């Protein structure tokens, strides 16, 4: 049942769809003018939206379809009564806590925090008015390694935000940091330096392993201080695939002539052989072994088939099938594009050398290289 429609403007939505298929029901997938549209169940739309945003896909439009679209026009008494009852139940439910959210804890387990809540008789469906937020906050701050805790009630959720005590990374790992290096070959398009000293600038061409950010900063007095290098650097990465198509090619082709021999053996001892002579000048052999299925005894039958082949010159009309070869090269290039890579541009070049046509297909990706 289709209910919710997504439209995404992007070139490489295929990889995204492959990922979505594993978790969600999506259907009626179309792609026109680089806009991919698909339907999903409305209950899954938020999760899908979250994934799309996570991987940097912009959503052109999203709309309700099917039953959901018509629900707002229904004026049946039963539905109105249902809505009123739901509203009353909703108002009653606002007096209670329905969810406890714990955020910010890395080393402290949620169980430890829940233990403190249990001591205060706070569970799901506890009355909001019975919760003393200030006292609870103080109690939580007494947990070992908690430097600060905040407790708020938002809607039906009790949100506990924990800030843990941190050890200073710069002091603990003094002088042991490694420089940030490039993971790909490409041309830098943006640099967002968080910590460290940049070794490159926008427009530089970098190779795999080149240093991007040095693990130190210069102080005002000229001394250097070791820091963990951190930066978000994006660059244009080129994926190139080459396809060679020869105008003439000599291929090995099997004729329909076959000479078959078989032998029967019992417990490794051969007791029957057909010995037809192979009269072909060029042939290849295929062997197969199996047990006789209609016999109780373990009698093994071994087939040896000799296939005659000839060499034939095959001419290729490159100009007529050019589009097909270009598409084939494109498919080969797309196989090297990783999940959620954003394709910036696609182009191809055709060269001719003697009797060989060479198609070079280039896909430009915009990638985070740190």
């Amino acid at each position: 049942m289709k209910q919710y429609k997504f439209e995404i403007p992007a070139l490489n939505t295929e990889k995204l769809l492959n990922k979505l298929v594993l978790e969600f029901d999506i259907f009626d997938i179309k792609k026109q003018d680089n806009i991919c549209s698909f339907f999903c169940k409305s209950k899954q739309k938020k999760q899908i939206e979250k994934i799309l945003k996570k991987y940097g896909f912009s959503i052109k439009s999203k709309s309700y379809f099917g039953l959901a679209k018509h629900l707002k026009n229904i004026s049946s008494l039963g539905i109105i009564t249902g809505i009123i009852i739901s509203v009353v139940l909703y108002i009653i439910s606002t007096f209670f806590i329905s969810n406890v959210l714990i955020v910010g804890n890395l080393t402290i387990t949620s169980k430890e925090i829940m233990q403190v809540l249990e001591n205060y008789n706070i569970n799901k469906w506890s009355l909001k008015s019975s919760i003393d937020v200030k006292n609870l906050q103080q109690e939580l701050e007494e947990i070992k390694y908690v430097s600060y805790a905040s407790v708020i009630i938002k809607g039906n959720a009790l949100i506990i935000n924990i800030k843990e005590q941190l050890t200073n990374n710069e002091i603990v790992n003094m002088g042991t940091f490694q420089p940030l290096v490039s993971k790909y070959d490409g041309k830098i398009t943006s640099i967002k330096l968080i910590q460290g000293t940049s070794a490159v600038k926008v427009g530089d061409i970098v190779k795999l392993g080149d240093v991007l950010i040095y693990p130190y900063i210069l102080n005002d007095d000229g001394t250097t201080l070791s820091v963990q290098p951190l930066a978000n650097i994006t660059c244009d990465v080129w994926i190139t695939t080459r396809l060679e198509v020869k105008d003439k090619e000599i291929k090995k082709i099997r004729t329909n002539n076959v000479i078959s021999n078989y032998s029967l053996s019992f417990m490794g001892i051969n007791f029957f052989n057909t010995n037809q002579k192979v009269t072909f000048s060029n042939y290849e052999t295929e062997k197969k072994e199996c047990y006789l299925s209609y016999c109780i005894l373990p009698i093994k039958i071994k087939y040896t088939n000799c296939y005659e082949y000839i060499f034939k010159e095959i001419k290729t009309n490159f100009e007529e099938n050019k589009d097909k070869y270009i598409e084939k090269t494109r498919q080969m290039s797309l196989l090297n594009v990783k999940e959620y890579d954003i394709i910036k541009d696609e182009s191809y070049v055709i060269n001719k050398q003697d009797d060989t046509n060479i198609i070079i297909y280039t896909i430009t990706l915009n990638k985070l290289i740190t």
Partner: protein
Amino acid sequence: MFNFFNELISDYGLETSLINSFNIINMSNKLVYIEGHKGVVSISSENISVRVKKGVLCIVGKNLQIKRISHTTLVIIGQIKEIESY
């Protein structure tokens, strides 16, 4: 439950290894059912390519769209002209 491909294997005495890759059913050049795909490579209204074991399957036609997709099966509808395997 009835399994079309298993019935085919048993009726004609074929090897079971025949169905360990991918299977295609083309219904009147209007619907293609693919079993055993390994993900979509590209989509457009004229061309849909899917990855299969040891290659790519290319469906060429007009007004093509993926009607239904799961992690192993796929249903494509539209005016199908060609099915190619690279």
